[in-house]
């Protein structure tokens, strides 16, 4: 079958799709977007998380045919997506987020990231790099999509809020501490920026 849908703001057409193929497979193998990851392909790990009409879903559990005419955002489009959101008003109250000082208590600011040099990143992507939240990185795309969506809903999350929102995303390397740091940092920066 043929599936027409929008990925990261661009219309896409996938041909010869089998009925059993997942959205994840179509993204990775037919559209050349392997950023969404295939860690379990059974909806348990969250590494394939994408936004489907704005809602975070495991793309491995979405049949490709279900996305006909719908709107998908993957990690590859996250920077653009966050930029557009910022341009259309992010945090309205101006009082969001933990203070930057508080978020940076872990004192991990590195010095030679490539970031900011040619690659435009969303605040959550930047924070993951800065906080050391990336090791093997296989969980990272899904966590980024999920964390970005949480910060959109809840710009001033408590630690318990962050843990609850990210509880569907497994990470095997970090022990999650630096992921917590990264989300706190992104929230704090988001607050400072307003």
């Amino acid at each position, binding site marked *: 079958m043929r599936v027409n849908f929008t990925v990261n703001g661009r219309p896409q057409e996938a041909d010869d799709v*089998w009925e059993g*193929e997942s959205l994840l497979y179509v993204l990775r*193998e037919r559209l*050349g*977007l*392997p*950023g*969404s*990851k*295939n*860690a*379990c*392909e*059974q909806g*348990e*790990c969250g*590494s394939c998380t994408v936004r489907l009409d704005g809602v975070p879903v495991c793309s491995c559990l979405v049949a490709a045919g279900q996305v006909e005419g719908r709107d998908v955002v*993957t*990690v*590859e489009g996250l*920077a653009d997506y966050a930029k557009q959101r910022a341009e259309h008003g992010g945090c309205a109250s101006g009082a969001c987020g933990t203070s930057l000082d508080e978020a940076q208590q872990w004192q*991990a*600011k*590195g*010095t*030679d*990231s*490539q*970031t900011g*040099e040619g*690659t435009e*990143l969303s605040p959550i992507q930047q924070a*993951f*790099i800065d906080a*050391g939240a*990336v*090791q*093997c*990185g*296989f*969980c*990272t*795309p899904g966590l*980024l999509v999920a964390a970005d969506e949480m910060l959109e809903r809840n710009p001033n999350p408590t630690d318990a809020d*962050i*843990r*609850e929102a*990210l*509880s*569907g*995303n*497994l990470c*095997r*390397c*970090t*022990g*999650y*501490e630096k*992921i*917590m740091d990264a989300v706190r940092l992104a929230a704090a920066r988001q607050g400072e920026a307003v």
Partner: protein
Amino acid sequence: MASPSGTPTKITQGAQTKGGIGESTLRPDGTLKVTGEFAYSSDMWHEDMLWGQILRSTVAHAEIVSIDTAEALATPGVYAVMTYDDLPAEVKNYGLEIQDTPVLAHGKVRHHGEPVAIVAADHPETARRAAAKIKVEYRELPVITDEASALAPDAILVHEGRDDHHIGHVPHPNIVHRQPIVRGDVAEARKRADVIVEGEYTFGMQDQAFLGPESGLAVPEEDGGVHLYIATQWLHSDLRQIAPVLGLPEEKVRMTLAGVGGAFGGREDLSMQIHACLLALRTGKPVKIVYNRFESFFGHVHRHPAKLYYEHGATKDGKLTHMKCRIVLDGGAYASASPAVVGNASSLSVGPYVIDDVDIEAIALYTNNPPCGAMRGFGAVQACFAYEAQMDKLAKKLGMDPVEFRQLNAMEQGTLMPTGQPVDSPAPVAELLRRVKAMPMPPERQWESSEGADVRQLPGGLSNTTHGEGVVRGVGYAVGIKNVGFSEGFDDYSTAKVRMEVVGGEPVATVHTAMAEVGQGGITVHAQIARTELGVQQVTIHPADTQVGSAGSTSASRQTYVTGGAVKNACELVREKVLEIGRRKFGSYHPAWATAELLLESGKVVTDGGEVLADLVDVLEGEAVEVEEEWRHRPTEPFDLRTGQGFGHVQYSFAAHRAVVEVDTELGLVKVIELACAQDVGKALNPLSVIGQIQGGTTQGLGVAVMEEIIVDPKTAKVKNPSFTDYLIPTILDTPTIPVDVLELADDQAPYGLRGIGEAPTLSSTPAVLAAIRNATGLELNRTPVRPEHLTGTA
């Protein structure tokens, strides 16, 4: 053929930074990883590529009566089906140490999920369906599942006709390896004991559960060879095992490291490497294989489950008198790393304590359970769980504080290991315990808020099973000792190639090693070392491949030490050559070229007094300097097969944990509130990465304390829970805050004084959590992981 998409590219780092050792420089692959552009092995793609699929045995132990592939071969879209009979070379087995593992089953399967046939097709689903059409007729055999069945008088031999070098000293052919260690006189020392405690402990089978599934792409080459893009822990070890089975010389098997989504020991053994190459060579087309999670549970070895029998004695003033132990590790159907795991379990079975009189035996069995091999902590994890439980039992019996009791018996620099090897670098065991105990305690009843109980912070979480009723807090401590590097006489070297030249008007260093970056941050550290040693800002990390000498395995906490040491050494040699060029070009202008000690700093040649002699750009103008050199740490020696004596380990690593748990005693649910760690790292080359390793290792230890276990049916030896639905690893809700206190006491033997750090935190985490649960519940709890039924008495 053209390069596939997703081919690793060089990563050039940082233009305006210092970023030498000791700084928390950020990962050079960070941007690629957060944008989804980093190419993992499962992301590789090639025009016209086929998909490979493996058919695995549905039974654990059986003779293969027949295999019928006709229907699979006739399926449209299928390009090849291969069985044992299609293997092209004389060599049909592989293995890390003992080549006992068939590439495809021959006449017999020895464990559930053993590869029997492989298929290549133009769509992964076509390949799966075709594999399902292969008809295999099995005649089932009795299964060997534990020590009793393995050593029974009429036991079937898992491997007949063994000719490996352990068969001569094992008491039974179903024992892979046996290592006794005897030191002092236990019978005599036992008489001095005022208290004696015994314990029988069980350690469940843990899975590495790396998130990036086993995968890779094999591309046939015009010279009849093959190029494999692969996620592994050691390219050259793979190469040594792959080439003979393909019937190719090693030069015709090119290997490039693709992005690796975690490893933790589970990629030391081969998985789909040979299968992909066989199908690519058979079909003349690129072949990609990607396991799904179900298959991944069958496609790699696990941590050895173990039974551990311990006896300790102590005087009434709290001094340990003696220790006897017997450790039985289940190696499963194939040897994998079992012999080395036995060496570790036995030689580290005493823990970081002073006990002069010991009698130790460790064995690994051949059974029909899933093969077990390397996982973070490698034999030391199981022992630590048991000896730390013993320490608490002794302290309790003596009426002593468990931390003070441990400190009273803690080893220090100069203590002899049970193998007779002196610990000749800092061993701050008592200090780590002091530090971890001194950390502030998390507040009580954190779940209470003005709006009622926040169930997310209680046992049971959002299942809303308690608002604090029946919840009891407990605190537990543990400390462990892990070896660093490959042991027992292994030639554990690494190779580094370092090049220095002027690019775009700037001095640039290129570091090329075959080190597998699996997420640990080795490439970050290599760039830091090059900056420190060569005074450059720009460092390019060349993709890891087999075009450079071996870097050894990314295991045993060894890469920063050994490949880091090789990079440092190669940089030093490059520096000498650069200075020679400088002396030749500019020596006549300044006497310091001949007389002073010279350094490379911030792009310049400077004297140790800080005087600038030349710009590196001028020295290197028109010249490029390149060195490729192997580097070795000090040699070790095998343990004596009867007494276990020998200088077996390179270095030791220590960590201590304090766990705070809250247990819902009515439902048997555990919430770990905090898991604090103190660890000596010698020298933190990258503090941010060091803390990340400690927190990650701690969490894997937490997992096997309260949730992670592969359940194997003892009647059929079949795996019952091969999925993330049924094999649970900690989520962010299960994982507590992990405060880390890092101690840096230099080891003078090691580069920069560093200590391998990746594994030690995985050891003491588990027993600390268990100790805390015992403290909360008063239960004995002699097995891990702990499940609700063990806490409610309904097991």
